[in-house]
Every structure is written in C-alpha cells, then in structure tokens.
C-alpha cells in the first residue's frame, strides 16, 4: 500500500492528507501526544485515489480516483473543534467521512481535481481527454468539454472564472467558465518553432532527445512546446489575495523541466486575454 500523493490544507498547518489504495487519510497533529493522527475515509471509494484537493474552508475534501469518479467528502474534525457551515455542498451538517457528492461522468481515471478559489465550483480532468466543471449551486449539472487533445493530468484555477489544464499535450491550456458552461480559450505556450533536428543530429542531441522526450528516432518530430514531455504538475506561484487571480504559475513535467509562466505577460501576447 503506497502513498500516492500528499497535500496540506492552505489555512491550517494542522491538517494534512494522504491517499493510498482506496483510502483517504485525513491527518491532524495532536500536540498532547506529539504525533500525527489519521482518520480514514474508505467508503465508497472503489479504487486508487489519484488526486486530492481541500475546499478553502478545510471542512470539505474532493478526490479523483481510478474508479472513474470524482467525489466530495466532509472532512470536518470535531477533534480540532471544527465548526463547519452549511453550504450548497453540505446543505445539512454531516459528520466526518460523509459522501456529499459523487460525479460519474468519466470513462477515464480522474487525474486532477481542484476547487475554485471561492470553493463554489469544482473542476476535474480525466483520462478520457475531458475537462469537467460543476457549480455547487446545481450539483446535477456537470459541464464537460470533450477535448481534441491528449488527456490532461493536472489543473489550476487561475481565477474564479478560469482554469488552466496541462498534461500529455505538453502545454498548459486555458479554459473559461461561465454560467452556460466551460469553453477552451487558448493554448498558453506561444512559442516560435524550434529549428534543428534532422539527419545530422549530434550524438549529444540524440542522447538529449532520448532522455527528455523518450524518442530514439532522429527523423525530426521536433516538439514546438516548452515542455518536451508530459506535464505532471501545475502550481500557482503568486496569487492576488483579494481577487484570487493567479499572475504567475509553474509547471513541471516528465522532461525534468520546471517552467515558470508569467500569466500577465502571456495575456498581452495572446491579445488581451482576460481572466
């Protein structure tokens, strides 16, 4: 039973969570005994959990798993004196571990899930190359985009109305959310085509291509994105505390690269893109 990933909640350093096979552990620090205690959420998770995100209030947690579903649970801990509020996610107060919502719209593993800055919306990306958003005001209506690219593995809300998704297409893509649904807005990797490659590739270039892209043939499929392999993580670097808007973010991938993107600069080169 291995740990798939860990995360910690934003507000309170006392929380943490980690996921293992079919199990979500919510951990908190017990100062009296000077150790971390974990409480498990198991039902009705049927397969490995791939991603986790905290709601800004800390009292809810969303997960995406290999049983093709995205779920929201109550994670309020009375041990820590949590006083959760009722909300659209939790219309009446529930105890820890209660399943609040389950979304079953996908045919692929759910690779990434995230609450919007306000916590009212939830977006997730799955291996069927889809992007999904739901607003807690109407939990029965999931807005889905069946994209034409390879699946995304991670996403990041850039503001309350937009998020960026990245993955096997090697490029962060921007999506906009309105009351009517979610639409693809722009590819954020705007780059000039790389020159080079072709028959006369030096030994060093050949090795680099094998190492970074995992390709051994020299016939040039040059990659015209900054990342040369799957992007696995996307994180906010600087976020406006008042509006929740992200101005800088980073991506890292299987090509071993960590790339920092300046969203404000990108918006001007993409023609006044607003989030």
């Amino acid at each position, binding site marked *: 039973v291995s740990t798939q990933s860990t995360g910690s909640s934003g507000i309170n350093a006392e929380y943490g969570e980690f996921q293992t096979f079919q199990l979500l552990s919510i951990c908190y620090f017990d100062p009296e005994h000077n150790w971390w205690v974990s409480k498990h959420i198991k039902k009705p998770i049927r397969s490995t959990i791939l991603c986790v995100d905290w709601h800004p209030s800390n009292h809810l947690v969303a997960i995406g798993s290999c049983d093709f579903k995205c779920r929201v649970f109550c994670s309020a801990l009375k041990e820590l004196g949590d006083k959760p509020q009722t909300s659209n996610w939790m219309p009446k107060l529930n105890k820890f571990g209660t399943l609040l919502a389950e979304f079953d719209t996908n045919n692929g593993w759910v690779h990434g899930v995230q609450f919007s800055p306000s916590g009212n919306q939830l977006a997730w990306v799955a291996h069927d190359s889809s992007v999904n958003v739901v607003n807690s005001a109407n939990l029965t209506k999931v807005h889905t985009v069946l994209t034409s*690219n390879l699946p995304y593995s991670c996403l990041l809300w850039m503001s309350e109305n937009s998020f960026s998704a990245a993955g096997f297409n090697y490029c962060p893509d921007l999506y906009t959310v309105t009351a009517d649904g979610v639409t693809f807005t722009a590819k954020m990797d705007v780059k000039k085509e790389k020159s080079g490659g072709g028959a006369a590739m030096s030994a060093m270039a050949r090795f680099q291509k094998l190492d970074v892209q995992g390709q051994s043939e020299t016939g040039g499929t040059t990659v015209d994105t900054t990342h040369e392999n799957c992007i696995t993580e996307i994180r906010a670097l600087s976020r406006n505390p008042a509006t929740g808007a992200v101005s800088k973010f980073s991506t890292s991938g299987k090509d071993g690269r960590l790339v920092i993107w300046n969203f404000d600069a990108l918006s001007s080169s993409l023609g006044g893109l607003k989030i």
Partner: protein
Amino acid sequence: EAVVSTQSTGFRTVDVDAYDEDNYEDDARDTGDSGAAEVTERANQVRGLLNQLKTKEALKMALKNPPVGNKDASVKEQNYETVVSVLKSFKAADIDAAVADLDMVEIDILMKYLYKGFTCSPDKAASLLQWHEKVVAKGGLGSIVRVMVDRKGI
C-alpha cells in the same frame, strides 16, 4: 521413482479473485441507449434516407443512441451494419462536409465504429482509413483516446 501427491489438486482451479471483497466491478450504468426495436427502426429509417440520397442526414441518424449497454451482441451488430452501410454510400469528396456537420459526441461515436470496423471488417480498411483521417482532423487525438478508454464497446 517420482513422488506422487495423493491429495486433490482441485484447489488450483479456484478463482481466488472472485472472493476478494475489494475487487473492482464496473457498475452497469444506465446510459439510456437503444434496444433491439429502436435499432431495427433506425436501420429502416437510414435505408430510407440513403434511397433518397440524403447521406448526411443518414449519417446523423445512424450515429444516434448506439446500443452500447445492450447485452445482445446481435443488436450491436445490426447497428454496426447500419453505420457501415452509410459510410459506404459516401463519395470520398463528400466526407469532409459530413464530418463538419457532426458534434463532438457524434464524432466520438463515429470514431468508435471506425475502430470496430478496423477489427471486424479489415477488407474495408481503405475506406475506413479515409474516414478516420477526416474524423481525426475534427475530433483530434482526444476522440481516439476516448475509443481506447471506452469500457463498454460499441
């Protein structure tokens, strides 16, 4: 001489995975797709449209509500034949316009039938590949990915 076991070896044929309570079972989701009667009705309507040379309309009709959840293989087979009959009736030059008319859901369904065609009707591979090229131009790699991750099969 060799040692011979006198005990039963029946235990070797027990399916231990069947007893694992953590075993994942794909739940049968009600996708609201069509049954035998609807598939037959559709085949008739499509034939009618093809006789009137309304190939684009025939294609849209053929791709409606495929019997994905239906456990009867012959129903699926019948629907597949309907779709193939439409694909065959197109001139190569008209494929572009027909594909342009389809939405993403129809594109995904068509892609699934194309891949089924590659497996079941290899003799038709040449024309299927023509369609494939046009459908990928619109549906992209995403539509192929959705064929690969599809668990029910069309």
